[in-house]
């Protein structure tokens, strides 16, 4: 099995109680756990906010893709504040505008439309991950899919 060509961090919105935030996290889980488990790592936004050293080091080391649930764009802002590189910032709302039939509802558990919207976002994120892959992944990040 070939080594991952580069680690790409996926940083979703941490907004709890908002369907669009939940969509961002569902999409992030799908990318990191199912679609590109060897090339991506999830960083919890809350850990960046809390100043967690491991999370901040990861962000400073690897390129990031951010998934924001609203225009406040907390994930994108926080990664930049931590000195990270946002290679692509996704807004769930933009994806929803392209998939109007997939209206997300629910918070703890998304409706079918929300889950499908998350999958659509995950698919777009995966395409960006594939365009970013490069030679190596820092050793301290390897083997730990959630940071």
């Amino acid at each position, binding site marked *: 099995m070939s080594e991952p060509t580069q680690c790409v961090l996926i940083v979703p919105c941490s907004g709890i109680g*908002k*369907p*669009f935030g939940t969509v961002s996290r569902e999409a992030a889980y799908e990318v990191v756990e199912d679609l590109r488990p060897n090339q991506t790592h999830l960083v919890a936004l809350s850990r960046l906010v809390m100043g967690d050293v491991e999370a901040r080091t990861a962000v400073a080391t690897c390129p990031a893709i951010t998934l924001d649930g*609203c*225009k406040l764009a907390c994930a994108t802002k926080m990664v930049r504040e931590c000195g990270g590189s946002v290679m692509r910032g996704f807004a769930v*709302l933009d994806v*929803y*505008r392209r998939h*109007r039939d997939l209206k997300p509802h629910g918070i703890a558990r998304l409706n079918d439309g929300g889950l499908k919207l998350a999958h659509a976002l995950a698919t777009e994120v995966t395409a960006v991950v594939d365009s970013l892959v490069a030679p190596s992944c820092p050793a301290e990040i390897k083997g730990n899919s959630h940071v």
Partner: protein
Amino acid sequence: MMSIFIETTVDKFTFKVATDRAYTPEGLWVSATGNQVRVGLTDYLQQRSGDVAFVEVKPEGTAVAAGDELATLETIKVNTSLVSPVSGRVAQVNPALEDTPELINSDPYGEGWLAVISVADWAADQARLLTAEQYFKQMKQQAEEDTKKP
């Protein structure tokens, strides 16, 4: 011409009201030039509604009476029906909103306008609307009540 605003900060939110136009209690602004009025959402209404996903305004040529549905708004929080503040005919729909409905959020009193309506009797319509000061007072009270809700 640059608008002058009065504003208030409630909790962490700041809401602006342009002083050069009239308002509906529901949060639409109306700016008249001759027998045509331009209509849009107030800063308070757009912030309260959330990020706009889609807006659909009645097509040009549609006759509307004050209180009739003028547009529907879908945001990340709510689906809202916006009623016309005046009676007349839709003369122009903001073409920019088709591709960039977020203009309603980013520039509610400017580029984010909804429609221009040709009015039959502006004086009669205007008499039903609020002045900027009246709307500001009502909006401030409503915003403060919102912060008390759990």
